[in-house]
């Protein structure tokens, strides 16, 4: 593990012991409070001067602190802005917090330090009403431009029943229609001049190439893209707000739907975070079952990626083969969990049930089949000359740019950096497994496909190890916050019966604190940053999804290329819109 004290000492040396206040969190990530006027200097020094340097802005979010009860040793403030930094070379984490006061507080932008801060800061404004000064184009990102209020503020209603009845009179309808009118100025583009013959091409939100409700506004000259803007938020469901209204357990099904191709993989970061908060140890068997399902879902998601990628560059057939194989994998998931795409199978402290009889046979057959089929897919898709002509060198990305834009997962590894959280910071038992980290060379669309293909092979390797080394033992923790008391005991004394009643009707009460659970998900790094105020519900649930920074890179990647390349790049980004918008 990295030397947290060393980083802290370097910061204190630069900014004095008063400016930097450390906070201890349940996840053990170095967390420091800095005064608002110093935040920029601290962040910039963390990026460039500190050793190891924190080159990646991993996440940027805020917490509305106005209703929080338990905040020991923390500076007072109405809102806290949280910068989450990641150092890939030093394998270190850092969380920088800034306390802001006032109804609509303001903070300086960091877009010049990290380009991917642009969307995160828009989200700050959109969700919390925190103004970001110096931001190149602050706008509503996820909510429509006419939305009133900032949804993640505590006073904003979380349910329709808390709001006034919905009405849409004619004049308001007309007004809303008018906001849909496209004006380049609204998007930070110069207004069209008299001699400009660029065409504004509106790609999506309903377009066969966008894999969902993504809108890309392109300014094209002929078929060459001069510039592009991503308009997101069509799939926004307020998953983070829902976290504040669901008990710790009942929120698990919502996580499944964040990256809806990743299924149970999404449960993992959430339950890891809760387990950090509550200090729950997960038994070995449960860990391996979780890894089994997570890797199965990695394969499921990557199969969809390969199929749709091939389809987007015009190959109509591979997708059928890959979806057939995906069906087989989903059959196994169904046999284990009873559900297919969204099993909601992981629980705080373990999984919902033990593996069914005969799972070894099912999984063994599938591994053997898919190993053969992957070779076929490589022949049919990756070695196809037209496919290579369409993807090699298109949308290339170097390591430095990838890190600066917050790219993780296959996107990052395709640039040639072998950084996999499962290897760097083994979580949930991954240290017991043998696997390689596939990397690409130049980070283009083709390399991304190759990395995905190779990752499926590595996942199969992990699955085979799960198959051979499934430990015996309980499938869930005996921790009182994770499981109701045993029936035999509830029948004996009233105290356990009361506990049983409470933990079933209210759900567990998780001790106050903050923790983040992270996994190497199907599309990159996923993390859930949970703030508990000592209640039956989370005080703040922050979902860091991998697709969000990836989609943000699209304009940068496709500038100067053709419309057909844009589609190839979009397909190679491997994003899920539900994941971008949450």
């Amino acid at each position: 593990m990295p030397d947290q004290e060393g980083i802290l000492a370097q910061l204190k040396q630069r900014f004095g012991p008063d400016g930097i206040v450390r906070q201890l969190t349940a996840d053990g990530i170095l967390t420091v409070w800095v005064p608002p006027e110093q935040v920029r200097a601290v962040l910039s020094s963390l990026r460039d001067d500190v050793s190891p340097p924190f080159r990646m802005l991993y996440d940027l979010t805020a917490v509305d602190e106005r209703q929080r009860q338990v905040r020991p040793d923390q500076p007072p403030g109405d809102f806290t802005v949280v910068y989450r930094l990641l150092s890939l070379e030093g394998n270190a984490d850092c969380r920088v917090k800034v306390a802001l006061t006032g109804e609509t507080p303001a903070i300086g932008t960091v877009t010049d330090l990290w380009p991917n801060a642009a969307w995160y800061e828009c989200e700050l404004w959109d969700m919390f009403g925190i103004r970001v000064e110096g931001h190149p184009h602050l706008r509503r990102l996820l909510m429509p431009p006419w939305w009133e209020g900032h949804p993640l503020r505590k006073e904003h209603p979380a349910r329709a029943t808390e709001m006034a009845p919905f009405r849409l009179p004619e004049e308001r309808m007309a007004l809303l229609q008018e906001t849909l009118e496209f004006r380049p100025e609204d998007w930070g583009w110069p207004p069209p001049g008299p001699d400009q013959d660029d065409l504004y091409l509106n790609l999506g939100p309903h377009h066969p190439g966008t894999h969902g409700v993504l809108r890309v506004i392109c300014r094209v000259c002929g078929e060459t893209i001069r510039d592009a803007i991503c308009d997101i938020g069509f799939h926004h469901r307020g998953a983070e707000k829902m976290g504040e209204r669901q008990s710790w357990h009942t929120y698990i099904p919502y996580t499944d739907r964040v990256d809806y191709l990743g299924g149970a993989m999404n449960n993992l970061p959430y339950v890891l975070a809760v387990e950090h908060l509550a200090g729950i140890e997960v038994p070995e068997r449960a860990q391996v079952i979780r890894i089994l399902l997570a890797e199965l879902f990695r394969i499921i998601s990557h199969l969809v990626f390969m199929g749709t990628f091939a389809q987007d560059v015009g190959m109509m057939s591979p997708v059928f083969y890959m979806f057939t194989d995906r069906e087989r994998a989903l059959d196994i998931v169904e046999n284990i969990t009873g559900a297919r795409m969204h099993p909601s199978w992981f629980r705080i402290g373990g999984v919902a049930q033990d593996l069914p009889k005969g799972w070894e046979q099912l999984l063994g057959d599938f591994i053997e089949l898919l190993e053969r089929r992957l070779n076929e897919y490589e022949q049919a898709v990756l070695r196809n000359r037209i496919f290579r002509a369409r993807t090699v060198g298109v949308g290339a990305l170097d390591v430095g740019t990838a890190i600066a834009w917050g790219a993780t997962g296959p996107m990052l590894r395709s640039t040639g950096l072998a950084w996999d959280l499962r290897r760097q910071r083994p979580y949930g038992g991954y240290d017991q497994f043998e696997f390689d980290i596939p990397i690409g060379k130049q980070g283009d669309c083709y390399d991304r496909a190759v990395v995905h293909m190779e990752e499926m092979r590595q996942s199969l390797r992990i699955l085979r190890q799960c198959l051979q080394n499934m430990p015996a033992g309980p499938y869930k923790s005996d921790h009182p916050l994770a499981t109701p008391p045993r029936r035999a005991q509830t029948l004996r004394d009233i105290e356990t019966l009361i506990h049983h009643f409470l933990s079933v009707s209210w759900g567990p009460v998780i001790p106050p604190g903050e923790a983040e659970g992270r996994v190497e998900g199907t599309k990159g790094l996923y993390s859930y940053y949970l703030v508990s105020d000592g209640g039956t519900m989370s005080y703040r649930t922050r979902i860091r999804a991998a697709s969000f920074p990836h989609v943000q890179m699209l304009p940068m990647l496709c500038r100067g290329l053709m419309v057909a390349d844009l589609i190839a790049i979009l397909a190679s980004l491997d994003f899920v819109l539900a994941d971008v918008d949450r």
Partner: protein
Amino acid sequence: MSIHTIGVIIKDWLIGLLAGWGVPVELSRLLIEVLTWAVGAALCIIAIMLAALVFIYLERKVSGYIQSRLGPTRCGPVGILQSFVDVIKLLLKEDIVPAEADRVLHTIGPILFLAVSALAYVVVPWDEGGTVAGKVDAGVGVLFMAAVGSMGLIGIVVGGWGSNNKWSLLGAIRGAAQMVSYEIPMLLALMCVVLQAETLSLAGIVEDQKGSIIAWNFLRPWMWLPVVLFLISGVAEINRTPFDIPEAESELVSGFHTEYTGMKFALFFLAEYGNLLLVALIFSVLFLGGWLSPFGYPDPLRLPGIIWLLAKSLLIVLIVMWVRWTLPRLRVDQLMGLAWKLMIPAGFVALGVMCAVIMLGWA
């Protein structure tokens, strides 16, 4: 008995019938001439309709086979009625014209596209001495076909422009660029065959290959390059994968026919399958001996020539379908690069080789 002789017998019978009613022979000859052309025109359309009916079903079954699924199974035994059901569906659909579209151009586009496709069928030699017009193609079949074939893109451009949709427009522009470019290698390949047969008549080209399969053009080594060029540019001319960029579903939504529904869309659809059959027919005529039997001339099996022609065309169609469901799509610049940097020079090489072969007296 060839189609031609059947035509002559029917004509003679009609003239006799009309003469019996007291119509002057000159007038009845004129009437029959007009009638012949009308029947010919109708046959062209019918050929396209039949081609579309068969090929849509075939395409769905072939793609199903390639994609390890069944394809249509519900309509009739093994889904054989699927195409008819599709036609009924398309007929019943509402005809939508976008509010800001140019109604006239929007309507003319598909009609033009289909008309041009049908027109090219006039010169196809279905059997010994038999085009649909009932007579030999006046010696300029190749020229006519090439001229008419390149007009198809007018329908695409008109439809794409008239839709007032950016995707349609992009598709139309792509289509125009592509069809103009691939016309050239196609014609160069055609010229090789014309030099070989020393005639511009499609029927004459078939006559030139008279004999068993050994005498056909595709077995002559100097024809191998033209065969490849013609097949590739033929696939490009009919906008099928890997050259389907005017439609390019994942990029341009549906390309030039994005805004078409119902029968207008069906006309585009019909014409595309008509063009598919046309390219296969022309390919068979140019390189596979047209209506000739592979076992020698006259055909020892005594099958009508049209059967052989259709069998050969079907083979070509299946190959084109196989390619469509296997390969990805080229990008616009790669597509144009392929035409201008590779295929057109290759076409000139082929033409040069052909000339050399003639001068050396090997042909």
